[in-house]
């Protein structure tokens, strides 16, 4: 039940528009169970494949569309940053400090949120892939077929799984952040306790579904990777993240319905 529950939790935490775009893991699992183990008919197999196909279509469509929007938004963000820095730069008119701060803070927030959304898309891709791999494994196990290996090959090449562009945009976003807010990269407060408090208040105040979602995703990943009951040669090893304290402090309270 582990993956199914995790996926469900992830979906709960996700941005509302994304909720119905994830893998219908539960349904597929049910289908696999229904398929007769002793007499797996080719009909059943093709039905199964068809379903998987349409799921993959769903992913692809959503992913590519999001990707397109991110490409557009990133450019816009860049333009805005340029504009703002020009206005407050030596050449432009110099409005008040307060306005400057406001504008900069707004931009900072935008960059961070934008970054977050993109990372969540990568997460989306990954979690769906994981689900697919699992369901295929179940199918093979149930029917003794060898559907998994060749099918997954094709999945690997699907647009939704080829996340290179998004990852690149993420990196560029981080660079953007560093260049616009050079001090931001620095360690922040030396006081550990204060930092943790900040983190907690940040989470508490996080109506920011993006942030919540990111934390949830990270937590999910940790849990998924921390030992599976069917650890095999196709399983991923446990996460060895050194920053798990940060994660601990960020454990979310019970999910607030996000609407």
């Amino acid at each position, binding site marked *: 039940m582990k993956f199914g529950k995790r996926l469900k939790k992830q979906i709960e935490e996700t941005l509302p528009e994304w909720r*119905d775009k994830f893998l*219908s893991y539960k349904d597929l699992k049910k289908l696999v169970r229904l398929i007769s183990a002793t007499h797996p008919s080719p009909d059943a197999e093709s039905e199964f494949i068809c379903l998987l196909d349409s799921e993959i279509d769903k992913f692809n469509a959503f992913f590519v569309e999001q990707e397109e929007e991110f490409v557009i938004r990133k450019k*816009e963000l860049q333009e805005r940053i340029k504009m703002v820095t020009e206005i407050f730069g030596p050449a432009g008119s110099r409005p008040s400090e307060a306005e400057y701060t406001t504008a900069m803070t707004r931009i900072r927030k935008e960059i961070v949120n934008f970054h977050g959304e993109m990372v969540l898309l990568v997460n989306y891709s990954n979690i769906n892939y994981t689900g697919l791999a699992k369901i295929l494994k179940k199918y093979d196990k149930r029917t003794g077929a060898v559907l998994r290996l060749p099918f997954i090959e094709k999945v690997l090449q699907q647009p939704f799984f080829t996340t*290179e*562009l998004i990852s690149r945009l993420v990196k560029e976003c981080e660079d953007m952040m560093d260049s616009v807010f050079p001090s931001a990269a620095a360690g922040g407060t030396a006081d550990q306790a204060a930092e943790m408090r900040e983190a907690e208040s940040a989470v508490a105040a996080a109506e920011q579904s993006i942030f919540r979602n990111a934390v949830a995703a990270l937590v999910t990943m940790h849990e998924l990777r921390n030992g599976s009951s069917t650890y095999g040669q196709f399983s*991923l090893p446990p996460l060895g*993240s050194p920053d798990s304290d940060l994660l601990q402090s960020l454990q979310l309270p019970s999910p607030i319905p996000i609407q």
Partner: protein
Amino acid sequence: MNQFHNQRITGSVSSPLPIIPSPIEERYPKTLDSQSFFLERELRSNPVNPVQTPFVSNNGIFGPLPSSDLDAAYISESSNFNASYPSSYSSYPGTDQPSVSNYPKESTELAWHPEPLQRVLDYPDNPNFGNNLSHGVNVMASDEINKQSEWSDLMDFMNGNWGELQGDTNTTESKPEVALPADQAPTSFSVHHPQTHPSVPSNSNDLSAVASPSSSATAAPIKARMRWTPELHERFVEAVNQLGGSEKATPKGVLKLMKVEGLTIYHVKSHLQKYRTARYKPESSEEQRVIQVEETKSLDLKTVTEINEALRVQMEVQKQLHEQLEIQRKLQLQIEEQGRYLQMMFENQNKSIHKLKESASLEIPIDRMEISEKDHSETENHLHDKGAAEEVSKNKMPKNDDGKI
């Protein structure tokens, strides 16, 4: 089972099952004859070898192509992912696959065809795309190498080839992992490969032209899946600006100015719409709320610091997540590659056993014993089935026999 055909795609977790995608006839135009013939020849010339992976790619192909900063736009012919392999052969008249019209509803035709699968997977990945992306991916690769070696230690139950694969994948990591859906893209690429274009954009977009050959002809009933890259978007923005801004610009005008082959007005139109929304959409309610709060508060240093701190933490978490995701993805790719490799070894082994048996049990003249190119794939087909049961049991570790995950 017919219910599957009738229900709409809703997609939510507890939804009814999605419909089967619309018939293939609409999707695959019948105009690919010349290209398909070319491809057919390519097929024959490539011996049926084990699956080409993105990693173990033919570096030779990548070499000569000009690397540029302009990424290609991908257009894949199939907006519909079809693992139903017979359909991808609809455009190859020369093969003995079931024709397009036979595909959709007949259950007998939908039986799993490992053989065509093999061929589909034989396509080398489209080098053009990868090349363009490689400069971006390169950056990632070097960062990940250290982390990867950690994981490789953990996965030492895999056989010794792991180490070799590691070396391979690291060096070829910078090579494109991106490939178009196997069915159509290689087709288009192999056709246009000989052509050289001075400007890379049109070169890369030649692909798209072939991939959606009907694009210029019809009003895009085929929704070719287009992937916008930053560079392509850049050109778009330039064109829009030339036309006086996003409000004034028309899709037709932009399309003309962009001069990108294979780009349809449909693509431009939807992109323009998105573009307009991105520029003039009022800020999201969430942000607006927060900003109002911000602005009513006096922006003293403390508040600003708090906000910045929260943002910093958020960024940290996101960065971490992303890093983990990248690592995970690489691992997943490597796992699959390893699986393929093992599969291949297994099949080779089976093949030689089969061969031995044959020669031992019957007195066959030597020339008949040699497996020809044609027979090879059929034999593999057999072995695939026969070996299936064995492979499945091989994959399972003895103690893990629970029914649930």
